[in-house]
């Protein structure tokens, strides 16, 4: 196996075509993609039914509820990230290709984020309105989600790679990934709360950005290694 250098134009062609292929597949299976989004809306809508319609309480809970719902919803579509490619043999071709595997994995993670995280991001203002969050807080929430949801796709990708071909992968994946993304939840929901409390939210967003940078750097490697272990 001769590895192609990242400067090789054919590498970027491979990465781009894999990214576009995953997007196309997601668009052709709208039901799957939309199911996660609808799950997001339903989970968030269940909370007022559970704790009562008191607006003061809901306003305080809103950011946390939206974040927890986003966490759970992004777990839903993660098992499919590598499972189908594993079934039809595409994954083996990816492993054999001269293109660096972490880059291919990153392309798949990016496509996953566009189809799950971005969709949740677009729906979140609507849910925030249900919880009576003021417009400025909604802005902060969307910013925090913009920085935080890619981390969910990146760290979740490691979990998805570790559970490729494992029975009961979906539940196991949730078990593995959710404890690891606790910091994202804390800083994501914390940003909105800090804003509502009149404190600066810049620190929270900076930390989310730092987590994103760290995950962007490390998780494609970890996921690529996990795939190599899975298909050993």
């Amino acid at each position, binding site marked *: 196996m001769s590895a192609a250098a990242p400067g090789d134009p054919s590498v970027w062609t491979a990465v781009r075509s894999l990214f576009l292929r995953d997007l196309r597949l997601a668009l052709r299976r709208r039901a799957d993609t939309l199911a996660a989004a609808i799950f997001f809306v339903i989970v968030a809508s269940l909370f007022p039914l559970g704790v009562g319609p008191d607006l003061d309480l809901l306003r305080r809970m809103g950011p946390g509820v939206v974040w927890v719902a986003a966490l759970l919803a992004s777990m839903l579509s993660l098992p499919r990230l590598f499972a189908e490619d594993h079934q039809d043999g595409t994954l083996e071709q990816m492993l054999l290709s001269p293109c660096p595997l972490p880059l291919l994995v990153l392309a798949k993670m990016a496509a996953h984020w566009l189809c799950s995280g971005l969709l949740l991001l677009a729906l979140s203002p609507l849910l925030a309105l249900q919880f009576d969050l003021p417009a400025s807080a909604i802005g902060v929430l969307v910013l925090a989600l913009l920085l935080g949801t890619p981390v969910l796709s990146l760290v979740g990708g490691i979990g998805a790679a570790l559970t490729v071909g494992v029975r009961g992968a979906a539940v196991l994946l949730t078990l593995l990934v959710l404890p690891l993304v606790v910091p994202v939840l804390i800083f994501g929901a914390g940003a909105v709360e800090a804003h509502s409390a009149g404190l600066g939210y810049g620190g929270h967003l900076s930390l989310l950005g730092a987590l994103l940078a760290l995950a962007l750097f*490390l998780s494609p490697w970890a996921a690529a290694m996990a795939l190599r272990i899975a298909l050993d």
Partner: protein
Amino acid sequence: MGAQRINWFHFAAPQRFHSLAGRAVPWFAALAGVLCAVGLFMGLAVAPTDYKQGEAYRIIFVHVPTAWMSMLLYLAMAFWAAIGLIFNARLASMLAIAIAPSGALMTFLALWTGALWGKPTWGTWWVWDARLTSELILLFLYVGVLSLHAAIEDPRRADRAAALLAIVGVVNVPIIYFSVRWWNTLHQGASISISKGSTIDPVMLNSMLVMTLAFWMYAFAVVFARVRSIILERERGSAWTRPHLRALEPA
């Protein structure tokens, strides 16, 4: 240099380690028993009563050692997992997965004793204190490693996948700890802190250290015993395990 290397790796062969661990387990177990008896005597009978918390504080002699062990064992597990992954060493991977249940048990005990301590002193079983919360997440990480290992059929593949997860966890543990601490201070300001600083009575400190040593010896004994079973299970095809396996069969 060459001779030293051979010595170093002498016990890396599962067969040799099996007999070494077999000889070591009774010693560690006996040490654990003695140290535990001494530590408990010092802690329960000799150490003075706390002027603020009364007798309830005495659970500290189990609580603090288990909390320390829970973190130490995670590091030990990740270390052996990394060695197993990097050098493709079978024994290191077996050691890592043998440490995991003990680590999970220590984490659970730390949480449990913490709750028992919290009720009389804070008036509540559970506080979302930074340490309690990060200890809880540590328990989830242990459970994740164990269940990933259990879900994969092929033991070598399971070893390596669990090793990778343990390493990812180690990178994440400080991030989780600091984020939880920061979240906690943001939420409730100056919360109840478990740490009492260095103003602790020397007898208390000493009995705590003795108990920590006791738990350490216990962990060695249990992990070695568990590794022996794992070695026998995995090497059951090879000839040297036959007498050991036959000895285990019911008469």
